[in-house]
């Protein structure tokens, strides 16, 4: 089993290293935007920092964590060695090489185009090629996840695929669909512009292709958190998973409805029509359903655990839960942040309501709270949960882990709640320096500083997280018991083929994508579209 540990640890350390560096950039950014004087505060430094922070958090932390956790799950949930380990290492090297390339381009100031790239703003080709390599490495992971599950099913005909693996493969399938948009955008439009082969780009088509990726990618990030909710939290709480079937159904619904909804990022765009914006809004409402189902199923699972520990009454089971366990604590804190972040998201998707908050700090608040908060806190909890396995060391006390999790929660709330308010006041995004002499903007100053304090707490939490992981080195080696995932109240002996595979769902996804994105993309080719001139940011453009 040693080689799996090395593979997983390699991925997780890259993820957490990028994460820690990104936290420093994030705090500096908030300082630079605040009324307080900050060092190096120039626009080119600011946008370099935003690009570095965004790429690290959105592409590196996430992809490497998901890959590493996926490899771990494949071996432990399926109880057989991961197939194709050499390929897995190749995927890791590709992704790492790509990360280093993109980092070099960003730090040299030749790729300050933000993690969402804003063609016709164009940076160095090294940046885009680097990101393509990261995606290529992740595709290796996707294939290996599918192969692992397929081989297991052949060796165990008719048996239900363990939920943790079924969900992991759902994520892999979803990622393959997801990356089609941004890969096409980079390979066919941005790279040719970046290499100087063309000097105009179709901005409408580029934005539409990017939107294809932009929504499902956040569900790609979210899957590990939900996998932990369903397959680790009930175990940590000392109870049972309320319904294995609902788990499968929720992951399938996330696969189906996170893909054809990217246009809700384009509500304010003039290149798409009311009709398709409306259709994708309706589909976005549907993607909220699996989350609302999950909230109930996990609450019921926790209720089982709480009542087993003697909790009585309608809510008495809540304090009875073993909150001293990090996985339990993280789950509770995650749900609180999910409430606020999800609520904000329901405003964002509200079609006309989007005009209220588009490109304001409300959006920044939303995704920091839901991703940085609800999802990443579960990444911490998963790391704490599997680190003993990965390192072979015992956990002696979890006090420092709990402090770190609380610090993350408080920091995230203090940082992001004021941003909601500021967004409604009209505070807009991606600003290196505000003119605080303007009375409207001056009123925002105190809240910007409150937000900054939240960010500092987050940085402290991030450093404590790394310290907690590193301190496993000083622990004694422990006898390893097999890693146990949560057990359902009624563990399934058979599940319908539809909830044990993805054939049917892939067909439905294809249908949904053609319906939701077919014409919105085709229109640029059929009707022709005006081209905009490429602006090179790596040449002072």
């Amino acid at each position, binding site marked *: 089993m040693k080689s799996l540990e090395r593979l997983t640890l390699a991925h997780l350390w890259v993820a957490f290293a990028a994460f820690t560096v990104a936290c420093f950039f994030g705090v500096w950014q908030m300082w630079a935007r605040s009324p307080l004087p900050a060092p190096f505060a120039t626009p080119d430094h600011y946008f370099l920092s935003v690009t570095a922070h965004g790429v690290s958090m959105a592409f590196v932390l996430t992809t490497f964590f998901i890959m590493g956790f996926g490899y771990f799950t494949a071996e432990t949930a399926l109880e057989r060695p991961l197939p194709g380990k050499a390929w897995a290492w190749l995927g890791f090297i590709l992704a790492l090489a790509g990360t280093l390339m993109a980092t070099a381009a960003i730090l040299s100031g030749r790729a300050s185009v933000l993690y969402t790239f804003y063609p016709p703003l164009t940076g160095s080709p090294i940046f885009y090629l680097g990101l393509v390599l990261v995606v290529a490495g992740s595709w290796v992971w996707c294939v290996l996840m599918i192969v692992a599950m397929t081989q297991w099913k052949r060796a165990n005909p008719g048996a239900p695929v363990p939920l943790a693996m079924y969900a992991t493969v759902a994520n892999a399938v979803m990622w393959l669909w997801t990356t089609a948009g941004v890969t096409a955008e980079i390979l066919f439009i941005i790279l040719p512009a970046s290499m100087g082969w063309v000097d105009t780009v179709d901005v409408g088509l580029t934005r539409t292709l990017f939107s294809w990726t932009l929504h499902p990618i956040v569900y790609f990030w979210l899957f590990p958190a939900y996998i932990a909710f369903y397959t680790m939290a009930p175990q940590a709480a000392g109870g049972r998973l309320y319904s294995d079937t609902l788990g499968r159904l929720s992951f399938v619904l996330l696969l189906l409805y996170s893909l054809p909804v990217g246009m809700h990022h384009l509500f304010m765009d003039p290149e798409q029509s009311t009709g398709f914006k409306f259709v994708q809004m309706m589909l976005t409402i549907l993607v909220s359903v699996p989350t609302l189902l999950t*909230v109930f199923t996990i609450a019921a699972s926790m*209720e089982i655990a709480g009542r087993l520990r003697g909790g009585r009454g309608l809510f008495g089971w809540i304090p009875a839960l073993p909150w001293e366990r990090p996985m339990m604590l993280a789950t509770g804190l995650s749900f609180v942040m999910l409430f606020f972040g999800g609520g904000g998201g329901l405003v964002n998707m*509200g079609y006309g*309501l989007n005009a209220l908050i588009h490109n304001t700090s409300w959006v920044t608040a939303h995704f920091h709270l839901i991703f940085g908060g609800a999802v990443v806190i579960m990444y911490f909890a998963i790391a704490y949960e599997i680190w003993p396995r990965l390192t072979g060391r015992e956990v002696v006390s979890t006090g420092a882990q709990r402090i770190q999790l609380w610090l993350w929660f408080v920091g995230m709330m203090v940082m992001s709640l004021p941003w909601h308010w500021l967004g409604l006041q009209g505070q807009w995004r991606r600003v290196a320096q505000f003119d605080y002499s303007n009375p409207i903007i001056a009123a925002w100053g105190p809240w910007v500083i409150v937000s900054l304090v939240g960010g500092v707490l987050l940085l402290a939490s991030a450093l404590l997280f790394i310290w907690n992981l590193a301190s496993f080195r000083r622990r004694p080696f422990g006898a390893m018991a097999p890693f146990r995932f949560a057990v359902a109240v009624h563990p399934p002996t058979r599940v319908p083929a539809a909830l044990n595979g993805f054939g049917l769902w892939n067909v439905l996804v294809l249908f949904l994508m053609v319906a939701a994105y077919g014409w919105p993309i085709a229109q640029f080719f059929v009707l022709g579209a005006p081209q905009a001139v490429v602006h090179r940011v790596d040449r002072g453009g």
Partner: protein
Amino acid sequence: MAAPARSTDENLTETDVDTVMEQVPKGALALAGTAVLLLLIGWFFVYFVIFIPRGSVG
């Protein structure tokens, strides 16, 4: 793996779970239901108090 309280989990019997399942999911319904209700109140607050008064656009 973790804190000492783990040992009680090892002694879980089906009878324990069955007894508890007579109450579940009342508590979950209460918690999730309250959460969804608060969510709707918050959403409609933004809708009626902030969004609508800011005027029509199209």
